[in-house]
């Protein structure tokens, strides 16, 4: 009686979204170098930086390297921005995630500037980060990102960056 389609099975939707995220993240060697992983809950991403000795900047404290913290935040901001674009395209059907693979990766935003505010030293344990796209226009985006360790309310660093948004079509 109605033209309303039956919703797709949850597993199919999940697989499609997880695959798109895997392709986006898995293609970037530097993410592997730092060991960053992404956890997805619906459209929300949490970046995880599992502790590793090679991330240490001050062996006497010990503390995470400030550059690692900055890189972790920048990667989180950049992936969040790409992901929010991909998500929209998947939801509106303009992008078929099956067309995404290692040879057809989504184009990544370019960082224009990135400012990191170091609030406390990074402890030698896992770190987490979430980014929020505050504004995303046709060309430019402003993204804020927060990182914490044991306690979500006690940030150890936060950052704001501006990015140049690439053309929406995947690169072939």
């Amino acid at each position, binding site marked *: 009686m109605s033209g309303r389609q039956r919703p797709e099975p949850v597993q199919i939707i999940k697989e499609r979204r997880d695959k798109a995220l895997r392709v986006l993240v898995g*293609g*970037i*060697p*530097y993410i*592997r*170098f*730092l060991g960053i992983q992404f956890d997805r809950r619906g459209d929300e991403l949490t970046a995880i930086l599992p502790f590793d*000795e*090679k*991330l*240490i*900047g*001050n*062996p006497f404290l010990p*503390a995470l*390297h*400030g*550059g*690692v913290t*900055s*890189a*972790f935040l*920048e*990667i989180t901001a*950049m992936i969040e921005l790409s992901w929010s674009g991909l998500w929209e395209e998947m939801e509106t059907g303009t992008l078929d995630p099956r067309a995404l693979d290692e040879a057809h*990766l989504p*184009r*990544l935003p*370019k*960082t*224009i*500037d*990135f*400012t*990191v*505010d*170091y*609030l*406390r*030293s990074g*402890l030698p344990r896992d770190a987490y980060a979430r980014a929020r796209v505050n504004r995303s226009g046709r060309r430019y985006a402003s993204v804020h990102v927060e990182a914490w360790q044991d306690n979500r309310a006690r940030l150890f660093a936060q950052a704001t960056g501006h990015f140049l948004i690439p053309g929406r079509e995947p*690169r072939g």
Partner: protein
Amino acid sequence: MTDPSPAQRFIDAIPHAKALGLELIQIADGKAVMAMPYSEALIGDPATGVIAGGAVSALMDTCCGAAVMSYPGARGTATLDLRIDYMRAAKPGQRITARAECFHATRTVAFVRATAHDEDEGLPVATASGAFTMETSSGRPEAKS
């Protein structure tokens, strides 16, 4: 290369600087020059082979910290704030060299700026400016934890 300052030893002992393959080229009186060799592990954009911005930030941060450590009287430092502006993509295959200068320091705060170039010495790949904590022998600033 000038005196084996605390900064020189400090850099040799930084695990992440080692992971990036950083090389300290010059350090003295609040100035440091440091290089990062090109490595496929540091690629941020697989389609072009360009090094990740984050790796350039890590190089800049380390170089700025080294500049502060070589400032007369400095005993320790940590980054408070660092801003990086990315002017252009670094050429794939080329090493990146950062030059940092601590141009002013009080007993508690050091102000630093830096540039990063690939093998083309014209337009920098990136510039940075930041504020760092300054620990001097006369007193330690408030611990950040």
